[in-house]
């Protein structure tokens, strides 16, 4: 018979892997272009606008870099827990709690100087986000509750808790009843690195770099990091080798919560300078997409966070310059995710026409 069969690859792909990725990208962009053409928009011009808006030029890079910071931090955390095969999809809620934690620090110690304020803010954000994530971890370990369900539910609770605070006790009395806290004092605002050369790009970028390096060292160079990776590959073997599996689950969840909390802290402090419900725009969910696309590797996470951020920024330019509806951005993103993930299938398997031997 000449029906193609799926065969597992014996040899890992070398350069082919990159070409599969490139082909997937071309396919998804091609389909998107066709959609645009059907809609009566010039497809090639649209691609040019998308590129120049997201990546072409200093302003575009500044915008994209800024947007990728929270996505990157959340994705790091998500990727670490996915590596352990802990399906934590609660980065959104942990992000909210991080923002709440940082704001609590600012409102409780409003007169701290910058050098003390920043560590306290980040510490509170990490603790709040980490504890929030630890609860589903304990529920899973103690009662066998599926963490997919519990972390998802905790997102809603976390966001509502943030709203509860901002609509209630933390509301700025001079805001005419609108839901937001007072503007943070200067010491609690993460400033730009160098306004002259880097524009609005703030020190959150340095936090990203630091966290990424520390995490890489932790995973590659420490015993706990090794156990974490091994535990993900095979939980039973890990238990048999006397690895502290329960501790590891608790650790990755809390780590993810802390990282998402950092992202919440940075968004609150650096970009809106106060806590308000509109900081919740779904970075925690975007993080899951980025984590999958990058196959849970730190360097790829940086790359994909940047690419996805650029895509979102570019789509705004498409709207403004060509009046493409906002929904097109979602279609484009979904298309890329689907085709790249489908392409990854060919990394591990190939088709053969040979009959059974």
């Amino acid at each position, binding site marked *: 018979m000449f029906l193609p069969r799926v065969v597992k690859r014996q040899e890992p792909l070398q350069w082919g892997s990159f070409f599969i990725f490139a082909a997937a990208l071309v396919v998804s962009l091609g389909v998107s272009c066709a959609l645009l053409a059907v809609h009566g928009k010039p497809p090639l011009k649209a691609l040019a606008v998308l590129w*120049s808006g997201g990546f*072409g030029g200093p302003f575009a890079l500044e*915008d994209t870099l800024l947007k990728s910071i929270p996505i990157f931090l959340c994705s790091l955390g998500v990727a670490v827990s996915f590596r352990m095969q802990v399906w934590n999809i609660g980065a959104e809620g942990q992000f909210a709690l991080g923002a709440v934690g940082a704001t609590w620090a600012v409102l409780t110690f409003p007169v701290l100087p910058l050098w003390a304020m920043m560590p306290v803010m980040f510490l509170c954000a990490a603790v709040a986000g980490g504890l929030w994530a630890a609860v589903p971890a304990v529920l899973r370990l103690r009662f066998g509750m599926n963490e997919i369900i519990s972390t998802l539910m905790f997102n809603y609770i976390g966001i509502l808790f943030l709203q509860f605070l901002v609509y209630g006790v933390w509301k700025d009395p001079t805001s005419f*009843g609108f839901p937001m806290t007072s503007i943070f004092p200067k010491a609690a605002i993460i400033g730009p690195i160098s306004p002259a050369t880097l524009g609005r790009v703030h020190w959150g970028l340095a936090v990203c770099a630091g966290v990424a390096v520390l995490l890489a060292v932790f995973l590659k160079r420490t015993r706990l990091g090794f156990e974490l990776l091994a535990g993900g590959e095979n939980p039973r073997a890990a238990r048999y080798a006397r690895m502290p599996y329960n501790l590891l689950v608790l650790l990755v969840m809390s780590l993810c919560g802390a990282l998402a909390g950092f992202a919440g802290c940075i*968004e609150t402090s650096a970009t809106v300078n106060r806590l308000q419900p509109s900081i919740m725009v779904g970075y925690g969910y975007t993080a899951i997409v980025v984590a999958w696309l990058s196959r849970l590797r730190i360097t*790829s996470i940086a790359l994909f966070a940047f690419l996805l951020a650029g895509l979102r920024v570019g789509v705004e330019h498409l709207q403004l310059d060509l009046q493409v509806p906002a929904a097109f951005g979602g279609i484009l993103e979904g298309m890329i995710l689907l085709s790249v993930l489908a392409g990854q299938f060919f990394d591990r398997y190939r088709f053969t026409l040979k009959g059974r031997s």
Partner: protein
Amino acid sequence: MRKSVSAMLLVAAMLLMAALTGCGEDKKPAEAPKAEQKPAAAAPAPAAPAKEMQVGFVYVSPVGDVGWSWAHDQARKAIEDMDGVTTSFVESVPEGADAERVIQNMARKGYDIIFTTSFGYMDPTLKVAEQFPGITFMHCSGYKTAPNMSNYFGRMYQARYLTGMVAGAMTKSNILGYVAAFPIPEVIRGINAYTLGVRAVNPKAEVRVVWTKTWYDPATEKEAAKSLLDVGADVIAQHQDSPGPQEAAQERGVYSVGYNSNMSQFAPKSHLTAAVWNWTPFYKDVVEKVRKGEWKSGAYWPGIETGIVGVAPYGDMVPQDVRAKVDARKAEIVAGTYKVFSGPVKDQNGAVRVPEGQVLSDQDMLGMTWFVEGVVGSTQ
């Protein structure tokens, strides 16, 4: 496996770097003089009407919502038809960090007037306005101004009051439902005005409020309306951008009051009337003033007399005497002889908030965080 992935990454990174540095070098000289030209180009613009005027809009929801953003977009289309004016917009822009970027990019692209139409755009608009003194910024529904930034809104509460009168006359159960978005002054003011209108014709009626914490979520808003119908409400009003509550009312065979635009197409059998926006005259006026150099920064809050807010045509079921009563009150509000929040106005606890013979100040209305007597619900 690992090798191949890192190879892929390396290539991708190299390509990216090449592309970035290439573009950076290409774009920089082109971009820099542009930025310098901007203030110079914007300044003579009023004197030289030959230049096409670019007007940008930032919307919080998709324009297809037939609600808030749709109403603004109708006015944008009207401006587009004016001579020498081109417009564009960005829709579904979240109110946090993304808004600042979108507004800033409009400014960088040389738009002359930028309308930002959601409360959460206030601080981002202000930040960008400070960087681009040559551009006119119009922010809807906030309270901050700058030399080149106005805030504006319409006195929607006047239309709310009138629709409340219709609802109060039509209810049989004396329980009215109100599906509301967020407990912010704009929404609370609308609920209060509606309730005052209801109780002006039907002092026994009460208005029950449900918060959805959404602006546009058809399913949630429909469900919220159903929960009100379940407790006996027989007229559903809404401060939402989706027609979900209207549909829920029609399905149960009771009445509804729309918001933003005439929503009768979604519920022809239940739609009594609607409190509607008509931004076109105001927006045209702003464009004309900027073009002539007569625009002044300020806080604008025009009322029903300018047509910025209004009441949609009544449904067939609204009897003649009710129509006459509401139209008469409308004429009084237009003439300025009747004020919606004129005393005595009591709050939910029965405490007098506006004494007899006084009228609530604009300042107090803009920061309203309490419900009037007759509302069942909490402002949290």
